[in-house]
């Protein structure tokens, strides 16, 4: 397989970006709260250290990485699988504007007006790898597009790193396979900085474990919280079975926890929130 190292790119915003190490953060479009929190914090810490955070503007990990970089006050670049004039998914229009406003860029190898096409995304993943010095994968299920980016990075002699996850989660299958194959394990932003060879730089705030929920629970509502995980979604029926409670009651208590921002609901059930939902609104 051979692709030109840097295909001709169209760009919106500041391109090329300011000089500095470039790190791509990629992963699942439907991550767990854990993965999302990791991507966001990695993005923020790296941006703070002057790294240019590259991702694909997709849902899930990509968006979390961009958001983190913006929160860290850094420059972030979205490598798109559509024309630079078409933001996909459309829900990320605001995020795209924020990236531009913060001095970042939207870049694409595709002509203006190119709509999302399934077969364009793998090519985009190659481009993303070619633009980066290091690719960090955060949560990727088997067959995930993020693994294409990782593979491209290997072909292009870029460093591939992966964040470990729960062994129970299907979202860890891809990342753990990468680690098994020799990808460096990422526990915090410092690990990435070391890989970039700038580990000596001042980085006084390593990626710290989540600081807790940051939410106040109404009294008496924390009973079922300890049975929820921040990675694996459980549905009301499973929790009810575990606690031997009527499902109607469990459902009500979960809704109450949702109101308090302590749990989040996914397609397949409830997970503990790692941070208050209000921030995302």
């Amino acid at each position, binding site marked *: 397989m051979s692709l030109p190292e840097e295909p001709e790119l169209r760009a919106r915003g500041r391109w090329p970006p300011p000089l500095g190490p470039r790190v791509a953060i990629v992963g699942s479009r439907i991550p767990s709260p854990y993965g999302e929190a990791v991507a966001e914090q990695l993005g923020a810490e790296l941006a703070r250290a002057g790294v240019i955070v590259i991702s694909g503007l997709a849902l899930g990990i990509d968006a979390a990485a961009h958001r983190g970089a913006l929160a860290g006050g850094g420059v972030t670049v979205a490598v798109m699988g559509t024309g630079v004039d078409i933001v996909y998914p459309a829900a990320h229009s605001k995020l795209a504007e924020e990236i531009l406003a913060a001095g970042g860029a939207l870049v694409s190898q595709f002509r203006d007006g190119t709509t999302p096409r399934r077969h364009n995304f793998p090519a985009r993943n190659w481009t993303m790898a070619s633009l980066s010095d290091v690719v960090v994968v955060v949560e990727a299920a088997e067959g995930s597009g993020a693994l294409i980016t990782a593979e491209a990075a290997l072909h292009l002699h870029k460093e591939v790193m992966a964040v470990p996850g729960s062994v129970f989660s299907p979202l860890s299958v891809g990342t753990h396979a990468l680690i098994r194959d020799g990808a460096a394990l990422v526990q915090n932003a410092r690990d990435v900085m070391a890989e970039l060879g700038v580990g000596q730089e001042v980085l006084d705030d390593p990626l710290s474990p989540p600081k807790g929920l940051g939410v106040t629970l109404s009294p008496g509502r924390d009973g079922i919280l300890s049975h929820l995980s921040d990675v694996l979604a459980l549905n009301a029926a499973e929790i009810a079975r575990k606690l031997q409670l009527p499902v109607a009651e469990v459902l009500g208590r979960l*809704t109450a926890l949702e109101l308090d921002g302590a749990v989040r609901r996914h397609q397949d059930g409830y997970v503990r929130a790692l941070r208050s939902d209000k921030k995302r609104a």
Partner: protein
Amino acid sequence: MLAGLHVRRVEVQADIANGKPGFALVGLATTSVKEARERVRAAIKNSGLQFPPKRLTVNLAPAEMRKEGSALDMPIAVAITLAGAGKRPPPRTAFLGELALDGAVRHVDGVLVAALGLRKLGFDRIFVPAADASEAALVDGLVVTPCASLKTVVDDLLGISIIEPHVNGEPAPGTQDDTLEHDLAEVHGQEEARRALEIAAAGGHHLLLSGPPGAGKTMLARCLPGILPPLELAEALELTQVRSLLGDLAAGRPLEWTRPFRAPHHGISMAGLIGGGSGVAQPGEISRANHGVLFLDELAEFQTPVLQALRQPLEAGRVTITRSAGSVVYPAMFTLVAATNPCPCGWAGDPVRTCRCTPGAIDSYQRRLSGPLLDRIDLKVSVRRVRLDTLASEPTGEGSRAVRDRVVAARRRQLDRQGFLNAQLKPARLRKLAGLEPAPRRALERWADQKGLTARGFHRAWRVARTSADLDGAENIGERHILEALGYRLQDVAA
């Protein structure tokens, strides 16, 4: 004659005059009725009766109404033979049936509907095909004469030999067969969906089940009729009328006592689902599902116009169909259970298999489901596949009968309070009949605030909470009922 569930009376007059022998049939008869001339002529001759060799005119009154169907064969033949014998027909007596060429009386559809209508019009005796006698005999206060052949009818009318009226034997209608085809006791796990079914049954709410292939959505839906209360006599009669119209009644079991479960394929046409066809519209699946369950599997695959046509009947509980031959109204009080995959490939959110749909594809798939129809579905539940090790063990859930007892009690509370089920509570009535105390109100408003609930969503949760409270036997809606109700919704994939 029938126009939907409406009965129109047709008077058949026969006149025999001197002149060139002939047989004229007048009175806006359509083709099927015009053909009656040949059947009637042959049937009379082959019954050993005399076909008057004179100038014969048969008039179907009122003349301005279009006449359709073969049920007019018998009255025409009777009118001719009575006229030939110089006799008048007995008063307040109606005839219906199709004739075979040998004079035998054949089955016609809709005898029950006709009998009910004729009783209302003041008739007290009805001659029907022998095969349909048990159907007609369901109607109180009507003497039903079963007719095997034209000859026996004429003999009866001329007083030669009297036909014994048909009376339905025991067991009297009213005993319901209580064996359930699908019992909740056979369902593994799925506690959340079971609870949603119970609420749907108790409050008459419509339900959407979302989940991957093989999660058991169809099985769950099939359990719903079994937890609905037993049919009332009036409901059973209504069901039977629709099936009678369609010629769809089992022989020997005149009254339909089981709640219907209809599961049309997603390729169904508008006429098939709502009702229609040429001439007078026939009832569609929604009317066949009357007092029972309409199950629409793969909801996103149905044609959009077909789904949109469901809105009016969902609101009104009946459907009005207008065709060239006039408008008909059919009952359509059903509980809708819809099922869908969460995304085109079906695996979004599955803990084991990976979804391979693009966010765009998932988006447009879910958008097909959104909108006015989904707005009318109060309960939405995602159903997960049950793990294989659970499937191998004995199911531990309650059986349908236990659930049904609670449903019956909850329905009684609603009927005592407001005279109808909670699903029919419009916003104004909700405020009046299901007022919220401060705590539950706060929970609901807080949620609406945080999650951007629409007005419809707000009222949906409120209605469901009322039913949850009724299942609890609670006078007022509590906070836990509101919180539970808010749980019956789906999450976008791209949360």
